[in-house]
Structures are given as C-alpha cells and as structure tokens.
C-alpha cells in the first residue's frame, strides 16, 4: 500500500493533489474527503482555527492507523494532509484520499481513518474569535 502523510502549515492545494493521483488499471475507486474550517464554533462566529500538533506522536499514530487500514481493507494508496497553525474559515484543514479496487472498501476505509484520527492523533484546535471572511 502506498502511503503519504503531510503535516504542514501550507495551504492544501486539493486540485494539485488530485492531479497527482497515481494511475492504475486495477483500482476502480478513489474517495476523497476535504475537511473545511467553518465560520462558527459552538454557535460563536470565528475567523479561523489554530491547530497545534504533537508532531512525532501524530506521525507515529497516523502510521499505526495506516498499518491497520492496510490489514482491514485491500487499499492501494492512502494520502493524508493535515494543516497546522492558523487555518481561516472556508479553508481546508484536512484532506484524505483512499484508492481501492471497489468503492465499498474505499468509503469504509476513508470514514474509519477520519474517525480514528479524531480519537488518537494528537492534534488540537483553538477557535480564533472574529467574523469569518468569505473567500470569493
């Protein structure tokens, strides 16, 4: 299983990432998830979220999840990008790609990975008050 993990303060270029998907004639399904910062948190308007990461542990825990993903489903490739630092409302903080032979396993694996990430990967967010600024 190909795996790629990026934890970075740089904006997530989703189009670029999608364009870079490895070609295959045995994989019938690619599932993507983009997690986007919303302009409110607990009903209060926010301008951004600030993400903090315990990086060595986050990387280790992500790779443990990738190991388990590989055991559970016949996945060809997982790529995951998590942004850290300040992420403005309307911007993506998380991007996940799962490539698999069939869609059932691709959807199941993608949802499982996000659920588990939110349980064990040491990343935290702090809302930054203010009005969200819509992008145009």
């Amino acid at each position, binding site marked *: 299983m190909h795996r790629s993990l990026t934890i970075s303060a740089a904006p997530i270029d989703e189009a670029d990432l999608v364009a870079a998907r490895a070609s295959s004639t045995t994989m019938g399904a690619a599932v993507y998830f983009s997690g986007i910062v919303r302009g409110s948190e607990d009903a209060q308007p926010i301008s951004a979220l600030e993400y*903090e990461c315990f990086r*060595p*542990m986050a990387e280790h825990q992500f790779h443990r999840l990738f190991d388990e993903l590989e055991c559970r489903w016949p996945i060809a490739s997982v790529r995951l990008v998590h942004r850290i630092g300040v992420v403005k409302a309307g911007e993506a*903080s998380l991007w996940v790609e799962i490539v698999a032979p069939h869609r059932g396993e691709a959807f199941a694996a993608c949802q499982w990975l996000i659920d588990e*990430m*939110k349980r064990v990967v040491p*990343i*935290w967010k702090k809302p930054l008050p203010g009005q969200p600024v819509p992008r145009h």
Partner: protein
Amino acid sequence: MQIRVQFWSYFKELTGCAQATEELVEKATIADLLQRLHARFPKLVSMQNSTLIAVGVEYQGRDYVLKAGDEVSLFPPVQGG
C-alpha cells in the same frame, strides 16, 4: 528518577507551563506521577477523567511503570480534522 512531562493544548494554560519535571521513586507509575502533578497544578484535577497520557509516542494507562528518561505527555481529548 527524573521524569519530564509535557503539556499540550489548553493543559498548558491550566498549568501555566509547557513542561515540568518530577522526581519520582523507581517503579513509580503514571498514577503516582498524576498524584504529584495534581498537587502541583490543581487545575488539572477537574480534567482527570478526560486526560490522555502518552509516554514517548504511545498512549499508556495509569498503571504504566515509569523508567528513567521517559517523556510523558498530558493532553485533553484530541480534535484533529
């Protein structure tokens, strides 16, 4: 033995620091460490049921027996994504 402790997320604000060091007897457990930390940083007490604990990069339970050089991390529930 000396055990270094790191705090993450709003645990840093509760303790007022990002790191602390505790001197513990050999074979002390994480439960023993927590007892010391709760005495020193009382604001951590109310968080104890939701506190996550790692040694190095692995989660560990309260009964984990500490070794010299262990780096312990304390943090609230994670919130990635």
